[in-house]
């Protein structure tokens, strides 16, 4: 039985805020394959290309036939918990302050025996379990054994919550509430149990549809936030930066042009000013405060979400300057991730295909609805993944990009 997460008490401002610690992060290059898959929410292990044997721990050669081609393949994770322990002692500083901690040894149906964090809903050994991969606070892939079926309060498991960024009882900043995506996000994080939601809106004198209804929702408050104004970003960070647990940066400028279709750089500059420099301004002002609160009790600062585009991977020439601004933001986001990692704060990049909005009016379906995008972002927070490709178009283009980026470049050029 997993007790439901209690609503956090108000923070005592006199007490010292606990400094963030990380579980052991070093890994061999082979083992980073587990991390790479977990970042996408997948559980993959190496399988020998020659004989098919599933391998664990990750390695350089097949334990059965010595083959050295060991591609990572998705696993069902089904297996039997054959032994378990609860540790009450650890030499590691991260675990020391989180004891006791439950671990299991699982014989996967696919063959190998794995050591895994044991979810509180799992029965005592021997028991059937479902092993999955998660990113831990250090941002590295680890294995978690889950009960084979959903149990009540599954996401509230104390150990699991150290690996996820669940919005429940957390305070969220959504940087742009004027768009359909922003408003869908507000509704989605509220439905997911967020404690407070700040919703940014530039140019507050403009009365845009939907804002009033958002503002009227309990726990939601509008804050003036223009990402092109360094001073304004600093001011709002000074006001709420020390309270934000999850920052979702969905503000963007989106125009549809390549190079030859328009003269001058004004529109491209406007895109960069929000999509790239806006992220940089936000990161400079909000990231330090979030890092400092990364281990601040049950509802610590936990995640930063950037709304990018699948065009960040490879340019869609019909929206060439927009693609370039998202590519710049992707690169900056990797830097932000590197800088957030010592605190254990997850940086989540969202790469949707074309959204079903006015700027993609001429594109054929399928297009991602704002509601579906918001759902995907909340799911990413709950699963603690790093990279999300919501919608069929994004999933397909990502698969094409992984397999052959040059081919995708040609394919995108011919679609424009």
């Amino acid at each position: 039985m997993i007790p439901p997460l209690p609503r956090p008490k108000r923070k005592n401002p006199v007490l010292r805020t606990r400094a963030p610690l990380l579980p052991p992060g070093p890994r061999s290059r082979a083992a980073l394959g587990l991390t790479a898959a977990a970042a996408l929410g997948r559980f993959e292990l190496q399988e020998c290309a020659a004989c098919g044997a599933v391998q664990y721990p990750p390695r350089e050669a097949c334990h059965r036939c010595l083959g050295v081609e060991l591609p990572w393949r998705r696993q069902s994770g089904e297996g039997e918990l054959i032994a378990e322990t609860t540790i009450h002692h650890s030499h590691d500083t991260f675990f020391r302050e989180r004891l006791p901690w439950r671990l299991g040894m699982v014989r996967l149906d696919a063959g190998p025996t794995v050591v895994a964090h044991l979810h509180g809903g799992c029965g005592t050994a021997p028991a059937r379990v479902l092993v999955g991969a998660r990113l831990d606070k250090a941002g590295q892939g680890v294995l978690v054994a889950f009960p084979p079926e959903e149990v009540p309060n599954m996401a509230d498991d104390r150990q699991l919550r150290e690996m996820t960024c669940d919005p429940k009882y957390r305070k969220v900043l959504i940087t742009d509430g004027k768009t359909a995506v922003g408003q869908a996000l507000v509704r989605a994080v509220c439905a997911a149990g967020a404690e407070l939601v700040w919703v940014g809106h530039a140019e507050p004198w403009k009365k845009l549809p939907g804002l009033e209804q958002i503002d009227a929702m309990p726990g939601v408050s509008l804050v003036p936030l223009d990402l092109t104004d360094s001073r304004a970003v600093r001011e709002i960070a000074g006001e709420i930066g020390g309270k934000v647990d999850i920052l979702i940066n969905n503000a963007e400028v989106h125009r549809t042009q390549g190079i030859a279709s328009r003269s001058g750089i004004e529109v491209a500059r406007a895109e960069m000013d929000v999509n790239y420099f806006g992220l940089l301004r936000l990161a400079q002002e909000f990231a330090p405060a979030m890092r400092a609160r990364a281990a601040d009790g049950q509802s610590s600062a936990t995640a930063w979400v950037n709304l990018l585009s699948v065009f960040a991977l490879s340019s869609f020439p019909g929206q060439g300057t927009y693609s370039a601004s998202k590519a710049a933001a992707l690169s900056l986001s990797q830097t932000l991730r590197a800088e957030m990692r010592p605190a254990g704060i997850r940086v989540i990049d969202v790469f949707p295909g074309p959204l079903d909005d006015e700027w993609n009016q001429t594109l054929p379906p399928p297009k991602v609805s704002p509601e579906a995008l918001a759902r995907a972002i909340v799911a990413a927070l709950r699963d603690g993944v790093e990279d999300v490709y919501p919608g069929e178009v994004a999933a397909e283009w990502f698969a094409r990009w992984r397999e052959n980026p040059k081919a995708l470049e040609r394919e995108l050029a011919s679609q424009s």
Partner: protein
Amino acid sequence: MTRAAADYGDVVVAAPVTVPYVRHSIRSAHHFVARALAGLLRRAGLAKSEIDGLSLASFTLAPDTAIGLTQHLGITTRWLDFLPLGGASGVVALRRALRAVQSGDAEVVACIGADTNHVDSFRQSLGSFSVFARDAVFPYGSGGPNASFAFLTSHYMQSFGARREDFAKLCVAQRQNALHYPHAMFKKPLSLEEYLNARPIAEPLRLFDCVMPCAGAEGFLVMSRGRAEALGLPYARVLSTMERHNAFAEDPIQLRGGWSLDRDRLYGSAGIAPEDVDLVQTYDDYPVMSMIQLEDLGFCAKGEAPEFVRRHSFTTDGSFPLNTCGGQLSAGQAGCAAGFLGLVESIRQLTDGNLARPVEGARFALAVGFGMITYDRGLCSAAAILARAGDGA
């Protein structure tokens, strides 16, 4: 069918030496190697120049290995071995050295296991122990082998009905033995209640199921019988040995070690049966491993060790003397020296060089090696049967 190994002829072991253990030391491992070597020379009445083979086992010599120690200690050898195999290093060193002397590659081999222990060195060693441990165990928080052995212990209890009281019996008896051994780290008796109520470490393991890391060294010399007699050194004979690595890799969890593969050959070559053995030194890094070794080495059937434990006293003056100087659980675990502890104690028992209480009339001793938990199980299994001079086939 594997060809039977040749016997060890006239090659013998002598000069059991223990450098007393300390919980922590500010000295490096080199210090303990030097003291062990000096102790061996003193014991044998040999000059440094008369040692022409060196076998060294240590986890804390880095960046040095055995070769660096030849210069450090100013010795010239014509045979050199470095075997950082933890709990198996003693028996494996013995096997190599016996053949070296037998074949004439060396005349006198000093075998030494030594490690230091700084206040923080155990924690620091954990992350660099093996690639598999760093990738697949260390990130899960257990910090060392405790969790791995907690899995094995709980699985063993579940499979064979062992109770906490059965493990307690071994730990309490070994503590009893240790009270007569001047170098033991633990000097007070251990009661059943203390064992059962000790603070939990990794369930079902509690504090007294776990060894205490410390600094120290163990060593012995391998030479021809003629040389030992010329030196007036008491010696023991080695009747038979085995080592086996990564046995039963297909077992989902470790309930047996490589001993069961080689047991028949081990006793066959020695010309004795398990019931002829007068004292056993298991590799007792956790009491469950003693039970597994007693089964795999033929003292009882698989799964029957709990019942076997209930039948015996394990003290030096009782039935089935086990870990006669207290084992690691009471003497302490000085890194790779722990892999030598049982051998060195066996040689003492068979040469009347006792520090602990002697086992009356002991003729045959079995010393077991086990070690190297690079992921979820100990990979090395080893064992040696030793005989008092004049006894055995």
